[in-house]
């Protein structure tokens, strides 16, 4: 049964509007697979959660309204509010009935008791509601900030032992003594090294980096990038940098000394505490940074600033990230090229967006090579459903793509900014609070209908000893047009489908993506023999209007072959 039909059935079921024939269809579908029943069960749980959470919020609002009433409040107001309390759900009414009955009794007796007493009766009713619905969540109180520091040398003089390294080159060609690294300053010129520290903490250093060891439970990072896993530390771990300090009792976190004045840090797993150094006041107070949040320590201002976090800037694993934005913009995936694109109709690359009149392009379902981009195996405007579309240069085809007409709109663009034709409003690149047009992020803009084929084998050839392990991206459907100023970016009918193929095999589909979905994460494992990765965006058979899709921070992870 088509997905759309199932959605209609489930929607009717959840709204209590199922007809007899629909009920039979749904029953058959539900019993056909445990996954089907599970899907509906998940939606059922979600509905109950929505009811509970939002009703609790409503009751909380009533509570606030009652609490805000002054002593001299009119009886009518009290009647109104208690009536609203009473008119909540049947269950709530039953629970609040006793209190309301008392309130009404007193109201009936006119002003024989003061308004304040009525307020308290009303409050009692509201409290009864909240007790049953659950109190709204309170902001959590930060955990204790005290972290013991063991300011004493390790007993055997060894502060760290190398666990393993990857393509690591140390200063003057020397390697750390496998028996242990003693107090001192170390410089990793390139590559990566994982070290086990004396207190149980593990760190990964990414060259070029310079650091000092000399105390158990802490270290100094003078330059470069470091990832810390303090989950097995004896009493927490602390890293000092030229612009501040980062510490945690048990978290995983990363930090980079960007320059002599700035350090950036991100909490990977668990919360961290950070403090900025000030040239005149010394180290400031520690403040908490929650999991997946990031901060900048600024020596010039002595301030800690919150910065955007993708939650995955740092990793304990050895990983080389190939940036697909750089590739589309003409690079090899290791640089930070931006703001160029490929015409999906011809494969021509340009760092200039097309003229307004040239945005609509017609296709032929055939793959077109892109001579300017060595890691792009081709681009395609897919053929209409039922007609084969070429997916890669070795002849894999697929005829099930949801394409209503063989055309597209504008280039496959690696940004930076996203060009729009003529006077169209700019595309909203702020998704879930993160601006993917920022230099540290990046996006690939693909309009329905278009496809991009990437050469995985060529990537591996360019990185000896590494293999492709994952394709990751966020996907978001953004509209370019608001129908009126200030209107939210949402449209009922602007949905797209995303298809991800590896060597002609369909590996991921995300159907019916709309602006309401925000960001959808794609995380696809890749094998060392996979040759071509093809990404296709289609119009979902509802036309190409408004189908502006952003692939946010699209990347391919390479890891050492021997650690695959």
């Amino acid at each position: 049964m088509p997905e759309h039909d199932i959605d209609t059935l489930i929607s009717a079921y959840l709204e209590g509007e199922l007809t007899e024939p629909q009920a039979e269809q749904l029953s058959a579908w539900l019993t056909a697979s445990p996954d089907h029943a599970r899907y509906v069960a998940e939606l059922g749980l979600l509905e109950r959660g929505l009811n509970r959470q939002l009703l609790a919020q409503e009751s909380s609002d009533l509570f606030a309204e009652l609490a805000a009433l002054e002593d001299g409040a009119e009886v009518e107001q009290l009647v109104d509010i208690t009536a609203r309390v009473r008119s909540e759900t049947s269950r709530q009414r039953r629970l609040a009935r006793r209190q309301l009955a008392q309130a009404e009794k007193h109201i009936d007796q006119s002003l024989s008791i003061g308004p304040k007493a009525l307020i308290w009766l009303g409050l009692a009713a509201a409290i009864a509601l909240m007790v049953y619905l659950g109190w709204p969540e309170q902001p959590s109180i930060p955990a204790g900030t005290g972290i013991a520091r063991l300011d004493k040398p390790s007993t055997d003089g060894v502060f760290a032992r190398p666990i393993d390294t990857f393509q690591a080159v140390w200063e003057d060609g020397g390697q750390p003594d496998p028996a242990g690294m003693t107090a001192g300053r170390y410089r990793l010129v390139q590559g990566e090294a994982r070290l086990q520290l004396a207190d149980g903490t593990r760190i990964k250093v990414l060259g070029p980096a310079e650091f000092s060891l000399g105390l158990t439970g802490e270290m100094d990072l003078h330059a470069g990038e470091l990832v810390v896993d303090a989950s097995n530390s004896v009493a927490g771990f602390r890293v000092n940098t030229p612009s501040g300090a980062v510490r945690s009792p048990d978290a995983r976190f990363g930090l980079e000394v960007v320059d002599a004045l700035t350090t950036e840090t991100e909490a990977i797993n668990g919360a961290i505490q950070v403090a900025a150094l000030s040239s005149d006041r010394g180290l400031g107070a520690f403040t908490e940074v929650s999991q997946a949040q990031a901060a900048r320590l600024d020596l010039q201002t002595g301030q800690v600033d919150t910065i955007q976090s993708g939650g995955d800037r740092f990793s304990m694993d050895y990983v080389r990230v190939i940036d697909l934005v750089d590739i589309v913009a003409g690079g090899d995936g290791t640089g930070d090229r931006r703001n160029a694109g490929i015409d999906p109709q011809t494969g021509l690359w340009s760092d200039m967006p097309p003229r307004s009149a040239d945005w609509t392009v017609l296709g032929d379902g055939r793959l077109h090579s892109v001579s300017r981009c060595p890691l792009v195996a081709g681009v395609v405007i897919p053929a209409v459903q039922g007609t084969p579309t070429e997916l890669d240069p070795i002849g894999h085809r697929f005829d099930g793509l949801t394409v209503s007409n063989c055309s597209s709109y504008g280039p496959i663009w690696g940004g930076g900014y996203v060009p729009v034709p003529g006077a169209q409003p700019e595309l909203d690149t702020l998704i879930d609070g993160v601006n993917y047009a920022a230099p540290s992020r990046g996006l690939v803009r693909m309009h329905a209908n278009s496809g991009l084929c990437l050469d995985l084998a060529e990537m591996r050839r360019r990185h000896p000893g590494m293999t492709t392990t994952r394709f990751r991206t966020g996907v978001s459907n953004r509209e370019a047009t608001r129908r009126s100023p200030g209107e939210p970016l949402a449209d009922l009918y602007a949905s797209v489908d995303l298809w991800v193929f590896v060597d002609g095999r369909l590996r991921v589909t995300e159907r019916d993506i709309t602006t309401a979905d925000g960001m959808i994460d794609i995380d696809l494992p890749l094998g060392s023999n996979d040759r071509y990765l093809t990404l296709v965006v289609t119009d979902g058979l509802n036309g190409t209007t408004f189908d502006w899709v952003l692939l946010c921070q699209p990347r391919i992870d390479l890891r050492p072959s021997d650690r695959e």
Partner: protein
Amino acid sequence: MAEHDPNTQMRDFTRLWLENQHVVSGYIYLSVRDFHHAEDVIQDTARSAVDSFAGYDPARPFAAWAIAIAKQRIADHFRKQGRRQPAISSEAVDALGAACAEVAQEADERLHALRQCMAKLTGRHREVVELRYGKSYSPDKIADRLGLKPNAVNALVFRARKALARCVNQQMRRQDA
């Protein structure tokens, strides 16, 4: 139950009910469909389960025992409402019951993820969700209020629900990772 001390029985019942309430209430919710009526049926089921607990065999799974009671209370509910039994087949309802038991294992995590996902919902989708679930407005009433057709409201609610479900699943996958 072998244990006859009422206090101990009540303690045992409370423990078992708390452990299994997501399963039972999930089953009831999917059968009754209306949130408020479902809550009533859950209460009735809990009351009946307390009354019958002396006959509960600890060798049997509590959830299955409680669901058997819930089935009777659901039937009572529809009888009182003057409606027929839920339209989907009993096999489908059983399949949903089994799925509810599975989903209930991760209910707390899912509800926590839902809170985070709700915070991301914006614009019209958030508006209709708040009116539908927060204020329990009917699609017609929401349509009146927002100047839309009821069908468009249903479509918006469904899309928002789907987006939230997708977001919750993503959060769950992230947690697993």
